[in-house]
């Protein structure tokens, strides 16, 4: 087994930095989403958008605003991809094929950032900056806005289905949270050695006498929001394994910290928004518990897992960058799949079979450990509602969460949320492994081949975006299938969550009674984690058995 101290040391540093920063950002986020004041810049934006920032929207209006804004984003990004060769700063790259441009557009608008293409060889600076980076900000802000709306729904007293203003939440999320954090992070990343320029590719002579093209670009600025917004789309094809995008173990740790910061802070902010900080701490605790288990299992699998080659080498080294080591790659893999980021600093296809299985399981949990920016929080809160309902059934208590009664209609919405992503995912994998065009993209056959396809569909349906490798996904079949998975996996749950927010907002909170289940104690934290694993995760056991589990046992 590899030396365990670097693994433990980097986790310790990460924990300390997160403990220091999450409460600060959490308080700031709560102010951002509850303050009635608008800044001068924000008022200017609202005037340009011609929206009333003080209008309190019904959840239906809020949802239609989310959908309309996202549709415009898809169409605009699609046009950029299709017309790239006519645009400046294209670096000589041609336009993307129709299915490829559509996949890119859907991928970045849904905060998935699945990349079928090689970034440095397919996209110019203009598309990277005005298309992808802009969507990195706004798609993240959309997720945060929906989470804020859900928190408001739980906090309000007879709000008549009104959950806030989408445009206000969107603009504030970008201007008050993501943009300032991204600027600071980008400067830190540049100091850490990341590239930041607008130069054309440069030919350099190699030591062996050959010629290599080195592509620069606005890498640090994209890297900052890529991690902060749990986006994950890399400037370079190999993402955070590229030395220009992630040059040192220090930038690797910084990237991991950035992935975790906002999702945890959103959960912390939730406690402030509902007026009971203990609720936020409880949600953070569940997220942490699931993530720690995931990191522990994945690190074990990569450092001391099965296989004679890893045993001889002191760890599974294939597909990993020597500068990060096994521990740095395992931690990154667990965090990127737990947070819905999808950045990679190692080849996930080369993870050990149990390691790859853990990465897939973290995504299959619904991206709640701690999940995407915003999506992690609302995913966990829906499961919290499910947990109080199941607990109520077990002990005969009236199911209520934060004083809001959980009735039949609420449970129908919760069930719809819990079933939506598995339905998309399992339908997607069924189509992928039965269609000849789907099978044609696989590099391997047998359990590992299934894992390649399963990982891709799981990543798309849960809006993660990381690739397993081994799969040739840049084909019309895979681009279209994964694009559909991304769209449905992102927006069906969002609409259901907003409907649930509207129902809770309409209710008058019930005062706590002796029959009320407390939702901030360790017992509830354990129950919620158990529900997440049993109800959500175990949906996928049959397909995991045929893929990574069989491979682990063989």
């Amino acid at each position, binding site marked *: 087994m590899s030396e365990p101290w670097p693994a433990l040391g980097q986790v310790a540093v990460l924990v300390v930095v997160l403990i220091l920063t999450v409460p600060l950002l959490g308080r700031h986020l709560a102010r951002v989403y509850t303050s009635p004041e608008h800044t001068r810049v924000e008022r200017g934006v609202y005037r340009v958008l011609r929206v009333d920032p003080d209008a309190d929207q019904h959840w239906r209006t809020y949802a239609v605003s989310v959908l309309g804004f996202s549709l415009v984003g898809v169409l605009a990004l699609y046009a950029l991809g299709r017309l790239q060769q006519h645009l400046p700063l294209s670096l000589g790259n041609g*336009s993307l094929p129709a*299915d490829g441009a559509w996949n890119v557009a859907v991928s970045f608008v849904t905060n998935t950032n699945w990349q079928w293409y090689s970034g440095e060889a397919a996209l110019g600076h203009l598309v990277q900056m005005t298309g992808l980076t802009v969507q990195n900000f706004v798609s993240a802000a959309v997720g945060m806005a929906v989470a804020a709306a859900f928190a408001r729904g739980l906090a309000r007293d007879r709000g008549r289905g009104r959950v806030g203003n989408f445009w206000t939440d969107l603009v504030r999320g970008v201007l008050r949270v993501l943009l300032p954090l991204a600027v600071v992070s980008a400067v830190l990343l540049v100091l850490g050695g990341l590239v930041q320029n607008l130069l054309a590719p440069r030919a350099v002579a190699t030591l062996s006498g050959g010629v290599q093209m080195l592509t620069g670009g606005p890498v640090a600025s994209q890297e900052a929001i890529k991690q902060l917004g749990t986006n994950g789309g890399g400037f370079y094809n190999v993402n955070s394994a590229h030395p220009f995008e992630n040059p040192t173990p220090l930038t690797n740790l910084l990237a991991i910290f950035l992935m975790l910061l906002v999702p945890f802070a959103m959960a912390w902010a939730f406690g402030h928004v509902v007026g009971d900080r203990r609720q936020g701490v409880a949600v953070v605790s569940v997220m942490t518990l699931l993530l720690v288990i995931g990191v522990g299992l994945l690190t074990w699998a990569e450092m001391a897992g099965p296989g004679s080659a890893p045993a001889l080498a002191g760890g599974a080294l294939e597909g990993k960058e020597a500068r990060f080591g096994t521990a740095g790659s395992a931690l990154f893999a667990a965090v990127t799949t737990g947070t819905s980021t999808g950045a990679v600093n190692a080849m996930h296809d080369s993870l050990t079979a149990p390691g790859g299985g853990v990465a897939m399981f973290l995504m299959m949990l619904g991206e709640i450990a701690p999940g995407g920016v915003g999506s992690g929080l609302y995913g966990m809160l829906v499961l919290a509602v499910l947990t109080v309902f199941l607990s109520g059934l077990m002990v005969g208590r009236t199911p209520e969460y934060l004083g809001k009664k959980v009735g039949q*209609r609420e449970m129908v919405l919760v069930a719809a949320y819990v079933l939506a992503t598995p339905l998309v995912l399992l339908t997607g994998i069924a189509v992928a492994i039965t269609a000849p065009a789907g099978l044609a993209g696989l590099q391997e056959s047998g359990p590992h081949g299934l894992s390649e396809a399963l990982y891709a569909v799981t990543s798309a349906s849960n809006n993660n975006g990381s690739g397993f490798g081994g799969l040739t996904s840049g084909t019309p079949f895979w681009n*279209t299938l994964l694009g559909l998975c991304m769209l449905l996996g992102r927006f069906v749950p969002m609409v259901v969550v907003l409907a649930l927010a509207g129902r809770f907002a309409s209710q008058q909170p019930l005062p706590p009674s002796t029959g009320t289940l407390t939702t901030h104690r360790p017992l509830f934290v354990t129950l919620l984690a158990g529900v997440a694993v049993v109800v959500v995760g175990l949906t996928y056991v049959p397909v995991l058995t045929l893929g990574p589990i069989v491979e682990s046992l063989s």
Partner: protein
Amino acid sequence: MEVVKDAVGACGAGLGIGPVTDLVLLGLTLGVFAALTVLTGFLAARGDDDATSGGGR
């Protein structure tokens, strides 16, 4: 006009499917978002019915 021609040409040459691909994908996108909007309206209507009748809580 040149831009449109290039876009259509690239589509046909790149995929071998023909210039209809852009229209199909545009239709698919609009169809998915239209379905999501219908879902929103359906859930809102059910919620409103429930609020009017006083049922569900």
